[in-house]
């Protein structure tokens, strides 16, 4: 049996799956002030009276890191930044203890200026006396050569609780994002470690002795023990959980849009070939662009509880939410009230909903039913507009080769998968308005918890080779080796896939779930004078977000 738990802003959902069957599902209110209790009760409720040894997997998706960052409840971080020439590093200042330092690496990975040891030690002393316990150490181009970050670490690590190194948070180029990502990781790594150790403790009390897995923003999981370093990867795993929950129902031969229609927002994602699209670089979090791998989701302020009012005689929906629907004791009319008034949704105080809609209807000089229809139509068209905008943005994404530009795949979704509270009621309208097939999976109201339960372990590696200098390296993995001067891209790809496989297994992946793919494979002749002196080869590969083996190819 496997357990999936997703902590949402309002509800926490837990499911227990046995094969394809949902053995148990629990929906409880989230206590933001005491997430640990919420999680532990969730696991406890879901696994009560089940044989602990029959539980093979527990995956948790929480708002812990997200809330800490968004609400500013983070630990102080000392961040040292070796930028070298380029953009003024003071422009990337983050947190209260930001120190640009000397030392520089160039784009080929050459060290062009050394670290000043005395400078680093002095900053270390200052941070120590300011009570800073977490460090983030970042250099420009550290993903080409991490030596400056490693030297800084060697000088400082003994005096700090946690050290986050820039080249370990991602293999991608982007100094500004590397700074932000390392900073955020350092800011939440302490609280994450404490939290997940406590969750482990709860599980052990119930006799569950397996490693805990945590859901990441890219819709993949990683084992807790490996993740304490990379706490920041767990931010915004909520939308990812829902998308993964729909994957079992997706048609792998088509391009589909996932809509998770909640109370406050609707989250939109795109599935291509049975896998969700990822953001090109990483998620935006707490006002910072990061290198945290994440699903390409867009969130818009339209949901069942969005505030509905008239502006210049026209119905306006969201983006604010004033409370619950009138039918459920809220202060203002909502799309849910429109559905209640139309009799599409049962339950709640129908009369209150009708009254609310009538007030709007009278101002417009229209009937209640017509007004309710207008509200529903307006909500759906806002959602569909946002879908179109997202699809256009994906198709407008810049590419850098003639081949990609001329042959580039244009995404054209052929259907929707809709989950969330009003999914069933809005499905027929979305279908009529978009002209595309709209499907609502069974158990759509706990798709998020299912998604967490069945998501596989994901990861990424970047491998670079310089055959003129005869080496191949993957700084993120602490890997460096010799390579033949005549080595080709094929060989570097083999090395990358091998490293990727090992990394995935280390993070908790199952041998059966290693669906690997190349994200980038480029090979350039390096010419000096008019002679080719070697090749510069760059390969980036990932384990695709997807489902663990028993749950693949479920529906369609």
């Amino acid at each position, binding site marked *: 049996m496997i357990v999936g738990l997703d902590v949402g802003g309002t509800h926490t959902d837990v499911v227990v799956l046995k094969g394809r069957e949902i053995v148990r599902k629990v929906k409880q209110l989230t206590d933001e002030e005491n997430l640990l209790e919420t999680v532990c009760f969730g696991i406890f409720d879901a696994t009560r009276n089940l044989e602990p040894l029959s539980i093979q997997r527990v995956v948790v998706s929480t708002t812990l890191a997200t809330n800490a960052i968004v609400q500013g409840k983070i630990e102080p971080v000392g961040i040292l930044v070796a930028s*070298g020439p380029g*953009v003024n*590093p003071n422009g990337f200042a983050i947190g209260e203890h930001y120190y640009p330092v000397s030392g520089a690496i160039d784009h080929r990975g050459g060290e062009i200026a050394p670290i000043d040891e005395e400078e680093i030690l002095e900053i270390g002393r200052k941070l120590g006396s300011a009570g800073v316990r977490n460090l983030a150490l970042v250099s420009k181009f550290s993903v080409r050569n991490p030596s400056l970050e490693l030297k800084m670490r060697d000088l400082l690590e003994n005096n700090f609780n946690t050290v986050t190194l820039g080249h370990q948070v991602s293999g991608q180029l982007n100094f500004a994002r590397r700074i932000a990502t390392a900073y955020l990781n350092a800011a939440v790594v302490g609280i994450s470690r404490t939290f997940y150790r406590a969750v482990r403790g709860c599980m052990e009390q119930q006799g569950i002795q397996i490693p805990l897995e945590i859901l990441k923003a890219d819709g993949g999981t990683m084992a807790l023990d490996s993740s304490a370093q990379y706490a920041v990867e767990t931010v915004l795993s909520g939308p990812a959980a829902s998308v993964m929950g729909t994957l079992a129902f997706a048609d792998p031969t088509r391009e589909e849009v996932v809509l998770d229609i909640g109370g406050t927002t609707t989250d939109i994602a795109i599935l291509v070939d049975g896998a969700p699209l990822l953001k090109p670089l990483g998620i935006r979090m707490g006002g910072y662009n990061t290198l945290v791998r994440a699903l390409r989701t867009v969130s818009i302020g339209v949901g069942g509880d969005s505030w509905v009012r008239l502006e210049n005689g026209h119905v306006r929906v969201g983006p604010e939410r004033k409370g619950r629907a009138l039918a459920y004791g809220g202060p203002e009319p909502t799309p849910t009230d429109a559905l209640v008034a139309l009799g599409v949704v049962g339950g709640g105080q129908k009369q209150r909903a009708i009254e609310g809609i009538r007030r709007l209807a009278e101002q417009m000089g229209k009937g209640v039913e017509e007004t309710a229809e207008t509200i529903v139509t307006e909500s759906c068209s806002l959602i569909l507009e946002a879908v179109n905008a997202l699809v256009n943005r994906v198709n407008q994404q810049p590419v850098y080769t003639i081949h990609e530009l001329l042959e580039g795949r244009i995404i054209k979704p052929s259907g929707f998968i809709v989950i969330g509270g009003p999914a069933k009621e809005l499905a027929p309208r979305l279908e009529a308005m978009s002209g595309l097939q709209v499907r609502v999976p069974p158990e759509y109201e706990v798709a998020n918890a299912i998604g967490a339960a069945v998501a596989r372990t994901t990861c990424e590696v970047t491998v670079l080779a310089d055959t003129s200098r005869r080496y191949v390296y993957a700084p993120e993995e602490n890997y460096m080796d010799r390579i033949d001067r005549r080595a080709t891209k094929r060989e570097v790809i083999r090395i990358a896939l091998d490293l990727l496989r090992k990394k995935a297994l280390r993070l908790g992946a199952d041998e059966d779930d290693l669906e690997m793919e190349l994200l980038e494979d480029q090979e*350039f*002749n390096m010419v000096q004078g008019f002679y080719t002196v070697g090749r510069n080869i760059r390969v980036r590969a990932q384990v695709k977000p997807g489902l663990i083996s028993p749950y693949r190819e479920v529906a369609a």
Partner: protein
Amino acid sequence: MKAKRKTGLVFFPAFDWAISETHPEREERLLYTQDQVFEEGILDIEGLVEFKPVLATPKDVERVHFCVPDVEAVLTESHYISAGGCKTIADAVLGGKVDCGFALVRPPGHHAMRVVHGARGFCNINIEAIMIEYSRQTYGVDRVAIVDTDCHHGDGTQNIYWHDPDTLFISLHQDGRTLYPGSGFPREMGGPNALGTTINIPLPPRTSKEGFLQVMDKLILPILEEFQPELIINSAGQDNHYSDPITAMNMCAQGYAKLTDKLRPHIAVLEGGYSIEGALPYVNVGIILALAGIDYSWVREPDYQPAEIRQGDDVESLISSTCEDLLNLRQQCALKREKYLQGEEFVQRSKTIFYDTDSIIEEQKETVRVCRQCAGVVKIDSYADTGYHLLGIYVPRKGCGTCQELGRQWFEEGSVKRFDLVCLQERVADEYHVKRK
């Protein structure tokens, strides 16, 4: 961090296109620039927007060039994208999406002249001219200034705008006596209808930042002020750099950034620059930051030693005297123009054009009508040793009735017994007509 001026970027390194395997114009020319731009996080800065290039169309090309035997024959996909990238930036700037923009595209274009038999100086088509004529056609732009800061004389752009008084072409480059293409001297000042709107500023080898900025302040900025262009284009070649392998100048990344900051072009277009590791990554970052109004004082090459590359006093005095010569020459333009108006109705010039990249020799005889009303109709009789014989007739954008009529007449008279193809570029109606053997 936020851009003071909203800046659009088209970044198209064409990682799968090269003239030949070890040619300077090859796949990885912008690889390290891309690394630097990506690593700096420039594309995330608020107010910097990256656009995906559109493809230029044959119609865009035919607005500027006579392609022999036709557009398809002289262009590869990469040229359509490179010219299309410039169009994309023009759309973004003129459509009001951004304040300025930079097309970091390849291959370059400033050696491509109006007649195209093949590639010269790594260029097949003039991507700036295609962009400018597209902008005029689409947005009604009239007066345009092009400042070509590539180390090589922008002879292609000069050729295309030689007769156009509404396009100010300024090229500063390493002295033509010491570098390809061997032209671009102060006395080259434009055709009889456009005297003074072509300006050539040859600079001695080893000119450094100081010399370039001196020319900007003394000459270029005042002339721009006088011309009052609606659109300023910078052909931003980067081969004046001290580390460039095929030139002999001493410019640096700081110098390029300062120059861009002074010039404030609406659109910069990458031209040459072949120090792909040591210069381009830093120069391009400098230009982007300067365009956007972001602090560029930290941009410098790892091996930058300003004292070592600083120009000598001899260089400075040579530049000063060139500036003086040019100012004197400019004052004579009105008088020269008057002489033309008193003289013959038609003025002819003949020249031999060598296509170094494709090894073609073209013999050209160009006839322009000296006109009081417009830029004057132009007729080009061009024969290349590939065997093609072209008659190209060009009626300018604001062509007068007489010039239009004459253009049509020349086209009708052009015999396909004598010429392989006869082409009419009718810019008043934005039409292109061809007759073939």
